[in-house]
């Protein structure tokens, strides 16, 4: 079953690894990768919680709109679970 997710459109201060160009963009989970130490804490030498990490696949049309070279080309990126929200595909 395809799981649709959206990268949260947040802009917190500090070190984060959710790329700006993907914030607010929706894609599908390509595969779960397991749990990894949260870089937002690691970057400051803090004891880091582990967070689930996912490879999320986006269509180029979703990211770049009309400017996409080929709308069906894809971009995969690793996004931590706390940066993702589920997209309800059955919403009206």
């Amino acid at each position: 079953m395809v799981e649709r997710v959206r990268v949260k459109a947040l802009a917190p201060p500090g070190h984060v690894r959710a790329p700006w160009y993907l914030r607010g963009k929706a894609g599908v989970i390509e595969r779960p990768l397991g749990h990894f130490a949260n870089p937002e804490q690691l970057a400051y030498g803090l004891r880091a919680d582990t967070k689930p990490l996912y490879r999320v696949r986006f269509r180029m049309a979703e990211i770049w709109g009309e400017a996409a070279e080929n709308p069906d080309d894809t971009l995969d990126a690793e996004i931590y679970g706390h940066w993702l929200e589920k997209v309800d595909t059955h919403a009206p």
Partner: protein
Amino acid sequence: MPHDHHDHFHHAGMSPSGHPYRADNDTPLSYWQRMEIAVRELMVEKGHLTPAEIAAQIEAMDARSPANGAAVVARAWTDPAFRARLLKNASEASREMGFDIGPLNLIAVENTADTHNLIVCTLCSCYPRNLLGLPPDWYKTRAYRSRAVREPRAVLREFGLDLPDHVTVRVHDSTADMRYIVLPARPDGTDGMDEAQLAALVTRDSMIGTGLPHRP
């Protein structure tokens, strides 16, 4: 032109062969250079590491080269069971071949007749160094990092690779803990070749996705 006329073309600041001299590193140390020296000397002083161990680690890192990845690719081309293991868990498959890749989390992505993969790290310069050695300088430039995700086909054309529309481009942005290697498609006309001959066809760029393997 005979070489005895060099002086006519000798520009100030240039070597006799016409290259600029590299300045001596007489500038003060940066903050992080001082930090590196301080931490290294402390580690040695406290007996955690010896200078020989540090030198050996630098040598081990410098010895890693794209030839390691090429050997992995050639094995995958000749051994279907290995190929399946590589696509399932590229770290374990690389270790199985005897490569000491440390804690590297490696994912292999496969080029096929209708899919071409391209690797980039938009945030910094993540690269499967433990398998392929140091990344090329262009891999770390802002131009490559920003353009590879926005206009990968234009970037690939500049590398000499003009992909037809029916081939889907899949760009992989190494944003966190994984590193990527492209498993290129085996070139035609290589049926009788053994692993070593095949490995010689595998270029660094073909494992980043900015190129294809050589043809025999």
